[in-house]
């Protein structure tokens, strides 16, 4: 089983990297791009025999305490088979 955790800045936090990418996309001739926000994701492999319930519980805690900083970031967990 695998889990994927997406982490991105909250909408209220300045994302200068996203802004720079957006501005360059305009330069490259894509006026349809209104905004870009940059984030990251973590692919996590779970040991064989781990239940989906256990995985979700552990990954939620890990996302909250380690992978994301709740002051500036939000996260989303996906459990993949």
């Amino acid at each position, binding site marked *: 089983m695998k889990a994927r955790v997406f982490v991105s800045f909250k909408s209220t936090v*300045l994302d*200068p990297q996203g802004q720079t990418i957006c501005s360059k996309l305009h330069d490259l001739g894509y006026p349809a791009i209104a905004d870009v926000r940059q984030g990251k994701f973590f692919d996590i492999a779970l040991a064989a025999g781990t239940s989906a319930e256990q995985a979700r519980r552990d990954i939620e805690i890990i996302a909250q305490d*380690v992978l994301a*900083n709740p*002051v500036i970031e939000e996260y989303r967990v996906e459990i993949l088979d």
Partner: protein
Amino acid sequence: MTFGVIVFPGSNRDHDAAYAVANVLGQKAEFIWHDSTSLGAVDAVILPGGFSYGDYLRCGAIAKFSPVMTAVKKFAGDGGLVLGICNGFQILVEAGLLPGALIRNRGLQFICREVQLRPGTTDSPFTCLARKDRTYRVPIAHGEGCYFADERTLDELEAEDRIAFRYVGNPNGSVRDIAGVLNRERNVMGLMPHPEDATEPLMGSCDGLVVFQSMLSVAVRA
């Protein structure tokens, strides 16, 4: 007075901090390796600048789980003086000892130059000898020094007089020009600029000394 200087893997201003308190201030500095579970007999703790754990994940995000941080939290909880400089500030916010977060500079560039700071308060063990009617020349050297906190937290910091220093001419996009903040009990300060690197004429400024002299004056009084 004995200052404990915590050394994380990737700390690189640990010797600068020790030099400032030992050679310039004439006090004692002791290095404390990050996997130590006790601080020993120290009167204050400095979390120095650098790139702990290569800034992997987020600046300070791995260091906050170092064994020594449990001892630092207890020391702070008992009222001990804790100063986090640059990466040390990032570790303190990640560890929840100070509010807010430090994110990528507004202009994306790593900035290494001198800035002017104005004390936001003189009611703290780190700024009690500072004067609000003048500015202090101290260097910065960071890529992730843009202070961020939500509006409610910022209002609270201002209402409780917990903004230790502000930039004069904001270099990195920090909200409300914040360069350093205090915890509610006022015994923990985080500061992005490097006061330890402005302590002798050869360094171009001695203005950073005020932070360490303030800490010393409080320790001597105690």
